[in-house]
Every structure is written in structure tokens, then in C-alpha cells.
């Protein structure tokens, strides 16, 4: 756009500089908390409480990380979290796309009414149903198991159903019709044509699901009690309760807990942002 050959006026140059300056300062403000986190995590405890605080550690203690991580059964919590996150992800992606296909592509009576219910549940604060849900899982003997955390995902998620339906609606019907004429079943169309064509939105849903369950604290807090069932979020909370003011250790463990999410974000941000845009902007 800027290569049209038209030279910029002095006024335009000044406004460009102002835009870059504001965006640059904003970026620093956004990144500063993370820098502060890394910097604190590498300081010796005596330097953490030094006044005035150092923005960059004068003495770098890498040993803080192994020291802090061995205070927790970190690998156990990591495995627990991973089991929950991956099973939830599989359930939510698979079931939500099956349900969304019926809403987007099949013709049946009651479709619109049920879809309005899907939209309404999207807006429902989950806490309203929490207590009976807790009692149901208690009756089923599932308290302090991963059941209450994983099972709901296999009923699909209204938000993802909505997102996938919107995407499936954009596909052309001609391809479906052609496949049906060629002898493909309707479910075959969904499985062999619609799903492979929907990789970007499936990726977005998978990432959202991963992000949500990785960060989730409320439901593990309510349903898990034994410390060998803890997720990373619960383990981190426990760690905070025990090492309340050892900020270097706390920052080290918190950063390690955030890291998988940051890594996933950097490799998949295209899908991430596409997905966000697709949900928020209609």
C-alpha cells in the first residue's frame, strides 16, 4: 500500500512516527510483566527483596528452576493436566463438529428451535448449574476423579458448536450433493468431505479447548481433593500456599506452567487469531 510512489507529506510522517511511538510504548507495557516474571525467577531470594528492585537480575540463578520444580510432584501434575486437557480436546472437537454438522447441513424439524437453545446456553453462566452438577457426580461416585472434568466435554460445547456451524454454512452444497449422487452416505459426506475441508476452524477449536482446560482452575478446585489427582493449576495454588513469599520460586513455577501455552500460541497463532476473529466478528 505504501509503495504507490506518492511521497508522504511532513504531516503524514509526523503522524506515522506518533503511531509507532504509541504502539512501541504499548508493546513495552504489555511485555514488561513477562520480563519482570523472568527476571524475578532468576534472582536469588535476597535480591528479590532488594530496594529499589532490579529490572534485570544482577546474579542469574538457573538453579531456581530445578529447585522450585522438585518441590512439587511436577511431572505427576503435568501428566494429570495433560490427560484431562487431551481427552477434553478430543471430546469437544469431535462431538461439537458432529452436532454442528446436523445444525448446518441437514434438514429436520426443530433445528432452529434447538439452535436457539444452543445460543442461549452459550450465554448461561455455568455456576447456575454447578451445585446440582456436583451432586449428580457425587451420586455417581465420581468426586475426586477426572470424570466430572472430562465427561461434560463429550456432550459437545455450545460455543464450539456455534463456531463450527458458522464455518460449515460457508461450504458450497454442490460438493455434498455430488458426493451423495456418487453413493456417499450423508455421514460419509461429513466425515470425508466437510471435516477435511474445515481444518482451520477445527484447529481453532482445538486450540481454544486446550487453552481453556489448561488454564481452568474452578472445576478442578471443586471436583478434585487428593493431591495425587491435582492438575498444574491446583498444584500451583498449593505451591503458593506453602511458599507464599518466595517470589523467585513462584515466578519460576508459574512461568513453566504458562510455557506450553505460549509455545502452542507461537506455532498456531494463525489459527488462533482466525478463530477469535470468526467468533467475535459476524
Amino acid at each position: 500500500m505504501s509503495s504507490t510512489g506518492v511521497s508522504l507529506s511532513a504531516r503524514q510522517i509526523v503522524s506515522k512516527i506518533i503511531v509507532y511511538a504509541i504502539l512501541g510504548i504499548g508493546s513495552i507495557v504489555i511485555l514488561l510483566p513477562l520480563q519482570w516474571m523472568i527476571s524475578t525467577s532468576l534472582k536469588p531470594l535476597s535480591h528479590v527483596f532488594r530496594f529499589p528492585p532490579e529490572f534485570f537480575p544482577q546474579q542469574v540463578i538457573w538453579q531456581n528452576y530445578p529447585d522450585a520444580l522438585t518441590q512439587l510432584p511436577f511431572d505427576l501434575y503435568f501428566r494429570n493436566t495433560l490427560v484431562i486437557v487431551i481427552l477434553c480436546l478430543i471430546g469437544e472437537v469431535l462431538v461439537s463438529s458432529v452436532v454442528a454438522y446436523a445444525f448446518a447441513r441437514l434438514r429436520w424439524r426443530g433445528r432452529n428451535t434447538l439452535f436457539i437453545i444452543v445460543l442461549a446456553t452459550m450465554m448461561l453462566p455455568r455456576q447456575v448449574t454447578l451445585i446440582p452438577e456436583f451432586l449428580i457426580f457425587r451420586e455417581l461416585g465420581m468426586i475426586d476423579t477426572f470424570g466430572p472434568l472430562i465427561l461434560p466435554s463429550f456432550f459437545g460445547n455450545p460455543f464450539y458448536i456455534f463456531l463450527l456451524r458458522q464455518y460449515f454454512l460457508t461450504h458450497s452444497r454442490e460438493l455434498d450433493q455430488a458426493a451423495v449422487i456418487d453413493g456417499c452416505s450423508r455421514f460419509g459426506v461429513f466425515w470425508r468431505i466437510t471435516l477435511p475441508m474445515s481444518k482451520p476452524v477445527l484447529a481453532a477449536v482445538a486450540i481454544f479447548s486446550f487453552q481453556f482446560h489448561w488454564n481452568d482452575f474452578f472445576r478442578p478446585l471443586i471436583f478434585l481433593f487428593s493431591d495425587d489427582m491435582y492438575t498444574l493449576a491446583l498444584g500451583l495454588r498449593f505451591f503458593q500456599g506453602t511458599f507464599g513469599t518466595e517470589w523467585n520460586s513462584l515466578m519460576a513455577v508459574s512461568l513453566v506452567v504458562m510455557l506450553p501455552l505460549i509455545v502452542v500460541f507461537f506455532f498456531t497463532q494463525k489459527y488462533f487469531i482466525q478463530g477469535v476473529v470468526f467468533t467475535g466478528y459476524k
Partner: protein
Amino acid sequence: MSLAFSRFRVSYQRGEVVLAWAMVSPWLVGFLLLTAFPMIASLVISFFEWNLLSPPEFIGLAHYHKLFFIDPLPMHSLKITVLFSLASIPLNIVFGLAIAMLLNTNIRGLAVFRTIYYLPAILSGVAVAILWQWIFSSDFGLLNTALRVFGIEGPAWLGSKIWVLPAFVIMRLWSVGGGMVIYLAGLQAIPTDLYEAAEIDGANWWQRVFRITLPMLSPTIFFQLITGVIFSMQIFTETFIMTDGGPANASLFYLLYLYRQAFQNFKMGYASALAWVFFVAVLLLTLILFATARFWVYYEAESAEENG
């Protein structure tokens, strides 16, 4: 749509209908079991005194009477939760819009800036809460250290009854990038000929923003407002980790109080009443916003009708 298609539409094909119900059945079962039934059940439980140990005892509306007139904490926590939302949501929208508009000026490095601003939006939960607890530390925290650079002695954020709510608002502002990417996409979808026409008519920058950009983005802003209400009313993890509702209940957000009643005191009946009041409060806020929508949310087809 072709004629053949619309005729096709009237008669449902049996195989297709059966398949459709089979495909939606997981969601339908989940909705009935984990949403519809629990909603009714929690309303019923709210009329009972029940601590899970002894059998439930019917007490009618007593919990609702207690909640509104005797126990001061539910209305206090609802008030601060609404106050927090009233501060947090508009600030996030204004900053999100401002950054999106700056990014939408044909700048270089758009992708880099977008990544940086969006990064905090993917992080949430306990780790972020612990990070911000440290940032808000009055003597050694990042925020007060930064303020000292400008000669300002910051308050004891999380230890101050006055500053604890602003602290939570500031923390939520860190993830302003979540809305920003949505506004940016909305801005990029506005046809440029609208701006060209306005420029020819001599409209200045402010007029272009208020007459074109904001009206064209208003459906997006409205959507963000609705999801913002639902999201910020449910604030829990941050207060649980950072302040545990303190000091002196100044950050006792509604869900923290509900959690305590349900899962620490095991007052299932009272907590269910709290949950229903919360549900109605969120619903009312959402309905109020929907009622205002016709005054400021611009839908092209609708306005064309009015003008025509």
C-alpha cells in the same frame, strides 16, 4: 437458492432427519442432563436447607429473604462485581478499539505488534494471578517501581480497600488484545470507499471515526459488550488466589462468596439461591444491553429501511 432446492426444503427426508437427531443427540442429552435438569434442580434446592449430611428441610423463600435482607454480603459482593464490570468492560473496549485503529493505519510490522498485544489474552488462571500478585506488591512490585520512576509513590494495591478493585481492573486490561484482534478484523472489513467518499465531502478525522468507523463496528462492539458482561461478572480465580476476598471483603466478588457457601460451608440450599440470583442479575444486565442496542447498534439492512 434454486427452485428445486426450496421444494426440497419443504419435505424432510426420513433418513436425513434420523441422522440429524442421532448427530445432535450427544449435545441434547448433555443439555438435558447437565443444563436443563440442574437449572430446575438448583431452583428447587434453593427452597431447602441442606448441608449434605442431614436430609433437606423445606424452608420456602427463607434463603431469598436472608440473601436480600439479612446477610449483607451477597448484595455487597454483587455490587462490587457489577462495579468492577462497569469499570473493566468499557476500558477494555476503548483501549482495544484504540490499539486496533492505530494498527489499521498501513503500518509495517503489523503481525509483530498483533502478536505482542494478543499474547496476554491467551494466558489466564492461577499462574497469571500469582504474577499479578507480585506485580502489585507495594514495596518490591513492578507497578510501584515503575510509578517511582515518575516520582509517584503507589498504594498498597491488594492491601488497600480503595485500590484493590482498580488493581483487578488494571490486571484485566493486560489482556486487552483479545478484543483488539476482533476490532482489527472488523476495521479491515469496512469498505474503503466509505472513507474516500467522506474525505471528498471534507469530513475530518473525528467525523470519520464517529460517523463511519464506530457505526460500522457497532455490532462487533455490542457482541464484545455482551460477552464482556458474562466474562467479567464471573471473575473468581484472580480474587481466590490474590486476595481471598480481602481486605475487609473489598474484593469479595460474587462467585467467591458463592463458592464459600457451597463448597466450604456446604450450604447447598443457600448457595443455590445465590446462584439463581446471580443468574437473574447477569440476565438482567444482558437484557438491558439488548434493550439499548436499537439506539446505537447499526445494522445496515435495518437502517436502509428506515432511510428508504
